[in-house]
Every structure is written in C-alpha cells, then in structure tokens.
C-alpha cells in the first residue's frame, strides 16, 4: 500500500505516456500521430517534474521565510524540452501540409499505397 501511494504519481505519468504512445503508433492519420507525439512527450515531462517535487516545498523562486524549495533542475530541463517539443510539432505539421499537397491525403496507408504504385 505504501508502495502504491508513494509511486502512484510515477505510474500515472507512465499510463498517460502510454496513451500518447498508443495514439502515436496505432493511428494512421498523420495529424493524430503528431498529437499522440505531443501527449507522449507531455507525459514524459510530467515524469520529470514529478522527480523534482519535494513534499512541502514551494516553487523555486526565492522568498523570505521559505526554506524548502522544489528542485529547479527538472523544471529547467523540461522548459527546454517543451520548446523542443513545439519545434518538432511545427516541423511535423509543415511536413503534413507538404504531404497533403503532394499526395492529396494524410492517411498513412493511402500514402503507402501511392508510394507502392510509384515503385512499380
């Protein structure tokens, strides 16, 4: 029981991660793939932030009368990672637009079919 209580946060993050991961690999629509990627990454960020939490701590902005701060390092890392994530998303979306313009579809299996036709 202790184990569950003390680790539930990690598991929640993992469960959310897997939801995103599933959306990412199981769905054939390219936009959904990207959204899945977003969810997957956001949940990884949650895992990091969870590592940084100190019980009873406050946000790492120095104030008087406060002794205990949560760990700022994961926050910094995740700030960077969020930016990286949005960069990936925008590039991915640009590719989707490009794909739509040249294939006329954003469904993975239809694209694969069109590619196979070209191959022959």
């Amino acid at each position, binding site marked *: 029981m202790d184990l569950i209580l003390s680790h539930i946060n990690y598991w929640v993050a993992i469960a959310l991660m897997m939801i995103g991961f599933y959306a990412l690999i199981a769905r054939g629509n390219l936009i959904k793939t990207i959204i899945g990627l977003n969810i997957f990454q956001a949940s990884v960020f949650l895992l990091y932030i969870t590592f940084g939490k100190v019980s009873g701590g406050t*946000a790492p*902005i120095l104030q008087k009368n406060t002794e205990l701060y949560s760990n700022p390092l994961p926050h910094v890392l995740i*700030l960077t990672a969020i*930016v990286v994530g949005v960069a990936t998303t*925008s590039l991915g*979306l*640009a590719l989707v*637009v490009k794909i739509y*313009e040249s294939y006329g579809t954003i469904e993975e299996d239809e694209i694969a079919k069109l590619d196979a036709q070209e191959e022959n």
Partner: protein
Amino acid sequence: MKHHIVPRVIAKLFIPGIILFGLYVQFHGDYGPGGGFQAGVIIGAAMILYGLIYGLNDLKKVAPSNIIISLIAFGFLLYAGVGIVTQILGANFLEYGVLGHTQKEGQHIGIILVELGVGITVASVMVIIFYMFAGRKN
C-alpha cells in the same frame, strides 16, 4: 473574420495589452515565473491574433516577412554573440560575469541579453510559421 466589427474592436483593445504583458513577462522573468521563451510565445500569439483578425496582408504590412526572418536569426545571434563576447573578454563561452563590473552585475546583464535573444527568436519563429501555414490555404 475581417468583416466582423466586434472582434476587430476587441482586438484593438486587447492586442496592446497582450504585448505589454509579454514585455512584462520578458523582463520580469528574473523575479517571477516567466522569461524570454514565454514572452516570445505571448508576443507571437498577439501578432498571430492580429493576423487572424485583420488578415495576413495587414499583418505583413506591420511585420514584413523578410524582417521577421532576419529577426529569427538576430535573436539567435544575440544569444550566441553574448557567448562570443565573453570569450573575447577572456572568459569561457557564456561566462557572463565578465560583462559587468561585478560578477552579479555581469550575470544580470548577460541573462537579460540572452533572454531577449530567446524572446525575439521565439516570437518571430511563431509569426513566420503562421505566415507559412496561412499562406498555404489558397
């Protein structure tokens, strides 16, 4: 949305406010939550809002894409340039201490400058991405 009067008026009222808030976030990041990245996103969002309401061409008149492209590069150069300057001043890359008379002052100057670089790049990248996507619609 070009022809709806209500959003146009609201936008006129709000957009300066949003930009002001963005600037606040930019320069107040040392004390509270926020910093260059968040500020960049906010200012970028304000401009995108402008574009959405007044149309792409109006926005392009305010912020021509050539200038925006240069700004992307400029922000990044500003950041990296601070590093080079500290190197020229005899310290390691991005060692801001040498920028001021004291370590603290130097750090402060350095951080403000690089945060500014971040803000400029982020805001202009947001706008340029908007340009690219919006320009594709036809």
